[in-house]
């Protein structure tokens, strides 16, 4: 009546270490994005509030990842008040989209910031890294899970560089029209990338060949 294959302690320890390092990486990337977008601090356009939101979003997101494995009892009847407060806190931590709020606040800080376009491009790359690391940490997956996305991420990095380059180009003429023109060019680039996307991100055949399950 006994199972035969029991996970080895070494494998478990390696998994825990990997998960911890990804979580730490996500938290550091988030903190780096906040610092990158906020420094030097400006005092206009609710910058203080945006900074507060950014810090709150990143910190709460990291805390959510840390406490993700804490179990919640199925029934919370007749629980002590302290435990009930703790459960409410956990519920709030898990339901609120902290990372999205942090993202918006960081972008808003970057808008307020008189930064050169390459500064924004670096922030964009760091934000994508932050989102990917957060996803890996919350799903418990290894970085190998992102291997199929490498080509698309490379195209995205190219577009990011092109966008920064478009921002750094000197204006063709005076007025708002030239800025709009550059924007349209950037949008056209994104659309063009979208057109080649099906070829870059083509799915491989199903394992073992044959039809996909559920398809006629």
């Amino acid at each position, binding site marked *: 009546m006994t199972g035969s294959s029991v996970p080895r302690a070494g494998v478990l320890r390696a998994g825990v270490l990997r998960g911890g390092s990804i979580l730490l990486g996500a938290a550091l990337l988030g903190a780096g994005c906040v610092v990158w977008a906020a420094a030097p601090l400006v005092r206009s356009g609710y910058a203080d509030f945006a900074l507060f939101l950014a810090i709150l979003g990143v910190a709460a997101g990291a805390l959510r990842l840390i406490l993700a494995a804490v179990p919640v009892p199925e029934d919370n009847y007749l629980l002590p008040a302290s435990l009930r407060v703790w459960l409410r806190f956990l519920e709030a931590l898990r339901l609120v989209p902290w990372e999205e709020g942090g993202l*918006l606040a960081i972008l808003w800080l970057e*808008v307020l910031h008189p930064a050169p376009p390459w500064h924004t491009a670096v922030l964009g790359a760091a934000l994508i890294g932050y989102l990917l690391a957060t996803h890996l940490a*919350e799903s418990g997956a290894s970085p190998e899970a992102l291997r199929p996305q490498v080509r698309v991420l490379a195209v995205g990095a190219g577009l990011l560089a092109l966008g920064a380059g478009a921002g750094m180009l000197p204006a063709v003429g005076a007025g708002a029209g030239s800025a709009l023109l550059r924007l349209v060019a950037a949008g056209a680039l994104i659309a063009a990338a979208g057109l080649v996307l099906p070829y*870059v991100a083509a799915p*491989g055949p199903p*394992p073992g060949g044959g039809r996909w399950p559920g398809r006629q």
Partner: protein
Amino acid sequence: MSSSIEPNDRLFRVPGHELEVHWRSSRHARRLLTLGIAGVFIALLARRPEFAGVAAPALLLLGAGRVQRRPARIGVRVRPSATRAFEGELVALDVRAEGQGDSHVRWTLHPGTDIDPGDVTAADGAQARFTFTPERWGRREIGTMDVVLRDRWRLAEGHLTVTLPKLDCYPAPADQRTKVVLRRLPNRLGEHPARTSGEGIEFFGVREYVPGDRQRSINWPASTRRGRLQVNTFAAERSQDVVLLADATSDVGVPGSSALDLALRGAVAAARAYLEGRDRVGVITYQWGGVSWLGPGLGRRQLYRIIDSMLASDAGYARGASFRRLPRAALPPGALVVVFSPLLDQRFVETLRDMRERGFTLLVVDVLNAEPPVRRHREDRMARRIWRMEQEAIRFSLRELGVPVVHWDGVQSLDLPLAAHTRRPLAARR
């Protein structure tokens, strides 16, 4: 942890369940969408194309995810390594998904009540193995298994929940090696030396040689002394009928080591010990509303029958709590009756007295290890004292009737409290 199942494993031959997968956007997709929309929006408002560049990787990833195909149904096979286990025994649970395509599968085990999942409750891969330990006897639900499918781009998540099968958890038998043996044994071959000569191996005595005796049994020293041929005789080896009587009317004490827990564990230990000694063992479970029984039998399979009978005692004989109505098959005359009870139910004690008066040889193992709570009020202390005296009186009255009562705390081996009765045959005093 996972992927340790061989391709020819029985799991592959177990029919699986086709389950519908409910797909929805992942948190990762929602975050990418937030970044993409915010980047494009800011680029348009602030007329800064570099923000469109920030939005581009997120939008590309989202667009790539749209190209993917996701299975609407997958097959899930679940196989525990055993459908029966003793308390504290390690059980493996193999799970396997089929038809998930190139989606990534994550399994999360949510254990049921009194199921200890161990250190690992989540695993990745198309197949995985979990281990768990049932902590308390009874028909236990192992729990549920959450299956999360993630597409290649990790933008959509498919969720489904599988209800795991139930597990019959048997009480962990206590440690018992020695056996109480009756002085009078029925004329049936067994392993206990009887008080008559026969074909056993234990020395019984010396008698004069008669034609037909084996030459090898001649006792030469005795023959030399007496001047006539003397032969050794050996004790006959007999078996006995043992009826275990489990009192399920009272369950007091800490769950896990309550009176009922100890009664069942002790009964299982006794059943195992006597069955290993080739005795015929049966069980009677006394509970509210009736009595269930299983007639004495032999063999290892009888042990599991006894446990099943105790755990499903409501399915048996239930015409009332009187043992007088029990058939002869359930309570054979001359059987040794080993009782596991906290002796809290007065009717049960009366039943024991009645059995003793009918000539049965009884041995009571007292499994009461709890007392009324200590309180400050004088009346409470007085009530506690009266309760103790009443308990002592019950045990004293049984001893006066010739029923030995031994106390067992559930921690030590059962051999210790039974030691006084296992060294010599138990005589039924009349």
